[in-house]
């Protein structure tokens, strides 16, 4: 029975590793300037984790194969070096390896979160609410008008609670249900939630950030490839959570200018 266990474990370990080695399921290709660091870190971590996984499972299988149900007259043997060697290996080899992974891997995080957006980044406001995203562009004046929560009214299409009658800055603000951005231009996305917690996840853009009610958060990114990409809510927000999505449209600067003009005309 010990040998059956060992054989089963070997099959499981190899079968588990196979889709990884064959790249059967992969995230979609990166379209951001920062994503390369994340992808590289992912590959390095996968290599280390994969080696550790296979080594541990195969060694476990071999030991069970070799040492299960031995004849009564055989003697117990001791692992050469005893516990001391194993503890040292755990601390020195695995410990240093994993800590190094974390310390060097932090540069990918730092590249995104420790650097401020550049001065000419395009500010766009994103609002999450049950169960839709809305986006606001500041218009020609470059300023977002103030938000009046008491004026939020989806029935009147006043998603952000803007007072266009009294607030001069709000008059030229452009509100949309999709996020269009010019390619290769840094975007400074200013995020807030209208009601409960939500999240903003674009796989291709290697961005995931929660919307936290009561907090104004921001992310910045540069999309490098024109196209249409899914924006998902990944923070459980209620019964319509699975259907809460919008699209990111990455377009050339001239297409973006035209798009913005069209949207401005609809306001």
């Amino acid at each position, binding site marked *: 029975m010990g040998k059956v266990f060992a054989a089963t474990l070997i099959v499981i370990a190899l079968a588990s590793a196979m889709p990884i080695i064959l790249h059967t399921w992969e995230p979609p290709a990166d379209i951001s300037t920062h994503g390369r660091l994340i992808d590289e870190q992912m590959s390095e971590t996968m290599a280390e984790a994969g080696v550790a996984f296979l080594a541990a499972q195969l060694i476990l299988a071999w030991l069970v194969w070799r040492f299960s*149900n031995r004849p009564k007259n055989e003697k117990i043997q001791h692992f050469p070096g005893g516990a001391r060697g194993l503890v040292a290996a*755990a601390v020195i080899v695995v410990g240093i390896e994993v800590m190094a992974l974390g310390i060097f891997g932090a540069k990918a995080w730092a590249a995104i979160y420790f650097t401020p957006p550049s001065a000419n980044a395009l500010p766009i406001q994103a609002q999450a609410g049950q169960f839709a995203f809305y986006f606001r562009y500041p218009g020609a004046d470059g300023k977002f008008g103030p938000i009046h*929560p008491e004026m939020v009214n989806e029935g009147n299409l006043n998603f952000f609670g803007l007072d266009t009658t009294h607030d001069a800055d709000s008059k030229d603000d452009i509100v949309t249900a999709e996020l269009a951005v010019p390619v290769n231009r840094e975007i400074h996305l200013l995020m807030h939630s209208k009601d*409960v917690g939500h999240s903003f996840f674009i796989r291709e853009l290697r961005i995931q950030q929660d919307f936290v009610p009561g907090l104004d958060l921001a992310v910045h990114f540069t999309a490098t490839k024109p196209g249409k990409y899914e924006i998902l809510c990944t923070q*459980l927000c209620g019964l319509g959570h699975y259907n809460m999505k919008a699209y990111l449209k990455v377009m050339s600067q001239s297409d973006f200018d035209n798009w913005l003009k069209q949207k401005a005309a609809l306001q």
Partner: protein
Amino acid sequence: MHDKSAHAARHRVPPTGFIRKYIFSTDHKVIGEQYYGLALAAVFIGMVLSWIMRIHLAWPAAAIPGMQLLFKNGAPGGVLTPEYYLQLMTMHGTIMVFFVLTTAPLAGFGNYFLPIQVGAEDMPFPRLNMLSFWVTFGAFLVAIAAFFVPQGPPLSGWTAYAPLSALGEVAGPGQGTGQVLWAVSIAIFCVGQLLGTLNFISATLDMRCQGMGLMRLPLTVWAWFITACISLTAFAVLMPACILLVLDHVAGTSFFVPSNLVVNDQLQPHAGGSTLLWQHLFWFFGHPEVYIAIVPAMGIVSHVLITNMRRPLLSHKAIIYSMVAIAFLSYMVYGHHMFVSGMNPYSSIAFSLPTLAITIPSTIMVLIWIGSLYGSKLRINTASLFALGFISMFVSGGITGFFLAQPSLDIMLHATYFVVGHFHLVMAVAALFGIFAGTYFWFPKVTGRMMNETLGKVHFWFTFVGAYCIFMPFHYLGMAGNVRRYQAFVDDFMAPLMPVHKFITIAALITGAAQLIFLYNLIHSRFWGELAPQNPWEGTSLEWSIPSPPPFDNFAGKLPVVYHDPYQYDIEGATNDYVMQDSPASINSVRGEK
């Protein structure tokens, strides 16, 4: 300090009435069985909920027979509504985490065996112990009651993130009464666990029999003691958090709700609360909770393996210190659940490094287990198979922690099925394997009868292969970008992943059905199993020195005296190959006799 003299114990008279003996019993063994029974009932409820969810995920339009009878509002025509999917998911997580993974490994096995293994006649506070179970049982009833209120159970997940969980019915079905019941249930549950931990900690420190030094305690006792220490601080934080959440519902407070929230076009009458406060309080409990589930399994697996390897581990102390290190680190890492929550990005690094550091004590333990297998005379039985399965699952589930501990990778993996696969393997499946190993190992002691080994092995094979078939693919889905907590995958991106979901569902149904073999074995063996000898596995610790099942006060009024370290195997010259902890003969004299 407790009087440790061998004659100090008084012979207590066992209760005679049915109610005092089996219902409101103060006997730690009955309480242990009650906790185990509660976990058993809960795990089958939780499993059926997961079946329903899995069927719905694989075939979203399928009518599940009987659903409309069980859940009138939730499943018109037998097809789950989106909200009911989330409600079942919330209850699945709540029932499994709290009422299975917290109760069985610590309160179930620990209550039964800790006093026996330290050489005590009972827990130091038997009435508190009884109260602990009944309070926990009350919490379970309150949680289950959420199914029967008009809007059903809450839909905010077992993590109950505010303000979704704090706003009331306006935030969704079940977010009113159902969510309040949830928070009340968990607050009560915390009280039950806190009462239990007092007993575990004081029994370990103060009830040890003569000769039972701390380093002579079996690894199970160390594991339960460490787990109780974690529980004491973790539940002490979760309880006030849940009370504040209830107040936000019923007293108009705003602990977790900031101002200016607009739900359904209504400005909410709250101001000044903090959304992140809930997350901090919850995960301050939530991450240690993982270790509350898994550390007892580490102890049980060590105990079972040592007995079946016929040798002590390469290092007893390395396992103890590793468990202590894990318990200590568990409080410094909880922020890794919140990397993308808007917390200060510098704190992510501060939480990331201790999380990665947990790899070190975990690796030490795995290497000690594996290194001890080398040269051993491993006996293969159902208990040892589950213990070996635990090591495999713990490695598989733990290694994916490399990824999730890194904030930059969490950007891609957070809230995906990768996380679901990770915590199910390392927390749920590994802990369950510990529970199964403990069950097959100690069943003869508890009932006086053996479990059927053939059925046990069939159960093991289905469960071992099945668990991998279910939870490995979760990782692949997550890496491809399949997000979690969705009731259907309707978009172009996730639709191609549906065959994987179907495979997982079929594996889950088969693996779940195989648990009925376990249930049958458990019930059948209890009444009709082969009679068990006192020490069927040739163990050395104190539970094997008393009859099966143990008498009311464990040691028949005479506390044992311990002369040896817990795992004296591989002793040449001994009658078999081992010396019991309470055997007065010195090891040298046993060796010399040859």
